């Protein structure tokens, strides 16, 4: 006797959902393979080091509120557009990045539950999420790196009287906590960048930037920083900028955002080199750490807006190489169509205002006084 043949139907694994007011709403939970989780893990580790041994002038309350605002806003906006409850991995990452870089003047290390300047963190979070969801002038995707535009806007609009970016250096060269942080950053850089294939772009940025800043150092450029006695020049100028943990964070974890960087390998190389050149051009006349940090951050705001042009140039080049003509409108018609769109106009204003506004910091004696520590308790960076 043979066993009766049976046909088995493999039951589909039910997709998670919740029922609200009689309506089934799909739920998308975090995915273990999501590279954003890796990045969040790295930033959380650095936040832990910052709170414990690196002396970050940042409170746990500031971190949590910023993440909460970004996460909630992201969740609500995604629900409104896709009618799904999606784990706000991007929002959490944006909030974490904002709180990692932005500082409210007067916040003391160890004052863990301080809400000092919390409105500035919320402003940065709101700007980030609005820019992400409203400014989508190209292929329906966001143009600017969300945390980057939120931080740049807050630093420029609120100004050096009330906010500042995290210091370039987080302690003495070679000290245990700084070495630990550098190890986390370098490991994180490898771990996070590998799946998104951004190593070439990062290398292009670092190589270009290191060479140009090296030329500046040889030419005698210097800057003042609140944590240093006197101007920083010579080899220290190069080391303090190019090897700083803040620059590595910017390169490994901000410009390498796959959503806002070009998709093609050639475009990514152009993007890396271009961002490095814009950053170097902006920081050349800056004489304060505040100006240098803003130059770095603003360079990305500017070059993110160039990504459609970079991708277009790469596509045309590939088409020429293949002997075909890309199906595009004539340039004049494309331009006319673009300027008629409010999102394009807004994107253009933002892309131009970031570097221009950063340039207004050149020679700002108020910022110099802050960096030299001459403002006493008025603006205690």
């Amino acid at each position, binding site marked *: 006797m043979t066993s009766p043949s049976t046909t088995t139907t493999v039951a589909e694994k039910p997709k998670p959902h919740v029922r609200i007011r009689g309506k089934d709403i799909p739920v998308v939970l975090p995915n273990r393979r999501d590279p954003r989780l890796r990045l969040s893990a790295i930033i959380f580790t650095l936040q832990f080091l910052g709170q414990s041994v690196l002396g970050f002038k940042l409170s746990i309350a500031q971190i949590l509120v910023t993440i909460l605002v970004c996460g909630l806003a992201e969740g609500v906006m995604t629900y409104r557009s896709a009618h799904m409850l999606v784990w706000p991995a991007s929002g959490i990452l944006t909030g974490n990045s904002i709180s990692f870089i932005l500082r409210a003047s007067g916040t003391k290390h160890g004052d863990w539950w301080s809400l000092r300047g919390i409105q500035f963190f919320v402003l940065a979070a709101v700007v980030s999420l609005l820019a992400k969801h409203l400014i989508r002038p190209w292929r329906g995707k966001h143009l600017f790196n969300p945390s980057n535009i939120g931080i740049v806007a807050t630093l420029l609009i*609120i*100004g050096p009287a009330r906010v500042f970016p995290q210091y370039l250096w987080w302690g003495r060269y070679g000290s245990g906590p700084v070495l630990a942080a550098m190890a986390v950053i370098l490991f994180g850089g490898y771990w996070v960048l590998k799946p998104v294939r951004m190593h070439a772009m990062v290398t292009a940025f670092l190589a270009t930037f290191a060479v140009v800043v090296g030329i500046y150092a040889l030419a005698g450029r210097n800057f003042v920083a609140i944590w240093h006695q006197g101007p920083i020049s010579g080899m220290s100028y190069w080391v303090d900028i190019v090897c700083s943990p803040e620059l590595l964070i910017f390169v490994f974890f901000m410009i390498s955002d796959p959503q806002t960087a070009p998709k093609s390998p050639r475009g990514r190389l152009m993007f890396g080199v271009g961002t490095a050149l814009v950053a170097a051009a902006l920081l050349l006349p800056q004489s304060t750490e505040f100006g240098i940090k803003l130059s770095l951050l603003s360079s990305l705001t500017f070059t993110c807006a160039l990504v459609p042009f970079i991708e277009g140039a790469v596509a045309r080049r590939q088409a020429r190489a293949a002997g075909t003509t890309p199906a595009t409108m004539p340039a004049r018609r494309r331009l006319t169509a673009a300027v008629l769109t409010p999102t394009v106009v807004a994107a253009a204003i933002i892309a131009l205002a970031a570097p221009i506004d950063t340039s207004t910091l050149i020679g700002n004696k108020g910022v110099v006084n802050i960096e030299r*520590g001459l403002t006493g308790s008025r603006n205690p960076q």
Partner: protein
Amino acid sequence: MTDTLIRPPVPSEPPPPPSPWRPGPVLAVIGVLVAALLGGNFLGWRDRFIGAPTAAPVAVASGRQATDGGATATSAAPSGATAKSVLRSNPWWQGVTTLQGTGSTTTAPVAIDPSALQFRATWTCQTGHLTVASNSRPRPFVDSSCPSNNVGYGVDKGSVTLKVTADGPWTIKIDQQIDVPLYEPPLPAMTSPGASVVAKGDFYRVDQVGQGTVTIYRLPSGTYALRLDDFFVTPNSDLEIRLSPLDAPKSTDQFANGPQSALVKSLDVTAGALNFDIPPEVNVRQYHSVVLWCEVQHSAYAAASLS
């Protein structure tokens, strides 16, 4: 006859796409533009509406006694026609005037600097009762039986008239509390023949910010005096100038656990150019550095090596 015209139906054209320039997007673009202008501090908007990085420039003080009712520039002040500074000192008391009288009276106007934080009246009286009130506030800030002496405080600024009610003789010394830098000219003895510079150094940070130069003079009288130029230290009210035998103290611990230091003077003003007499019992040649010390915080704010 009807002239009704039956028109053939016109083929309907697709309606033109709605303009993207609706009120919402237009407002959003205007908002972005305003934010861009604010971010560049266009027309000083950011400084005005959100806050300037430093305090507004104000005229520095020329001495510990006010002249013309307030701060004036001197040759010791920073160069520039206006001799203004954005730096701020720890609040310090500057003398304004001393009033004397017998019985009740209304004084001549006393000029309190508009930027003063407050004023104080150090008073003495001999008999009966003394009350003192300002013209703008009827409640007296001095109200005491005599004989006695004490200090009363007021917050009026500008031209202040005092209404004194007294039964006998009284004296009132008025000081104003200001936070502008003080630029004292060098003591006459520092520039007179026979004076010499015996040591000089630049301030560096220890626990707080310190900058400027310190110069020690041997005066023709054989005593010593210390002068601070282009000076700034993180403001605090309990700072002392101390001479240390250490060559270059780098930390609070090194200074606090090092050899005995000598007190020169309490430091009430923390920005500007200042003179201090060194007590005669201090042997200047035993010391190799100057330390700005806060006993309350047990912290070395800044130091300067003498050479």
